[in-house]
């Protein structure tokens, strides 16, 4: 068990981070903290994904002139996917932060519980 954990330590840490992020998204009442939780969750998935591509003792995938030997470099695919993912995640963060600003302007609070009650009242 312990051996398995230390062998896959990146994956284990990624799952722990994912769990922290998930709990925050689901349970936090403060919208800003929910956004932080979401960012942590996404980073966790990226950590798991990037750790798949790592190969012990291999270098960064910048191919030297004339030595295109695949056994010198790490796997470039996960890095590329994570690169795409980071950019997507930042756009989503920006969007949700903008929404939070507008909600604060409208209601003066960013606690979800309060907001739900106020919205119910406003609707009736």
């Amino acid at each position, binding site marked *: 068990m312990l051996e398995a954990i230390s062998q896959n330590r990146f994956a284990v840490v990624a799952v722990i981070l994912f769990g922290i992020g998930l709990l925050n998204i689901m349970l936090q009442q403060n919208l800003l903290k929910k956004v932080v939780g979401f960012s942590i969750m996404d*980073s966790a998935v990226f*950590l798991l994904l990037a750790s798949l*591509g790592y190969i012990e003792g*291999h270098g960064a995938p910048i191919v030297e002139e004339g030595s295109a030997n695949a056994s010198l470099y790490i796997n470039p695919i996960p890095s590329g996917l994570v690169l795409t993912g*980071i950019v997507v995640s*930042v756009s989503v963060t*920006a969007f949700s932060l903008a929404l*939070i600003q507008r909600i604060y*302007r409208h209601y003066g609070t960013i606690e979800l519980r309060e907001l739900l009650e106020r919205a119910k009242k406003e609707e009736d």
Partner: protein
Amino acid sequence: MTVLENILLAGLVICAAAAPLCKRLLATVIVYLAFSVILAVLWSILQSPDLAITEAAVGTGISGILFFLTLKKIRALKGTQDE
């Protein structure tokens, strides 16, 4: 190298767990940015310099600015508590 890796991974978990538990939103954001910085270092240990540059520029820099501007707009910068 492995020792450094383990220390960084532990730091990652500590930051992630601490960030949402902070009382002040400002502290939350700062701890989250520390999380991002550690992640950027980890990317370069994982031999992905592209990711390290992007994480440092986007994850730490841009996200940080956006979070701080939001904090300013929701008046959480100078106030005492989550207000």
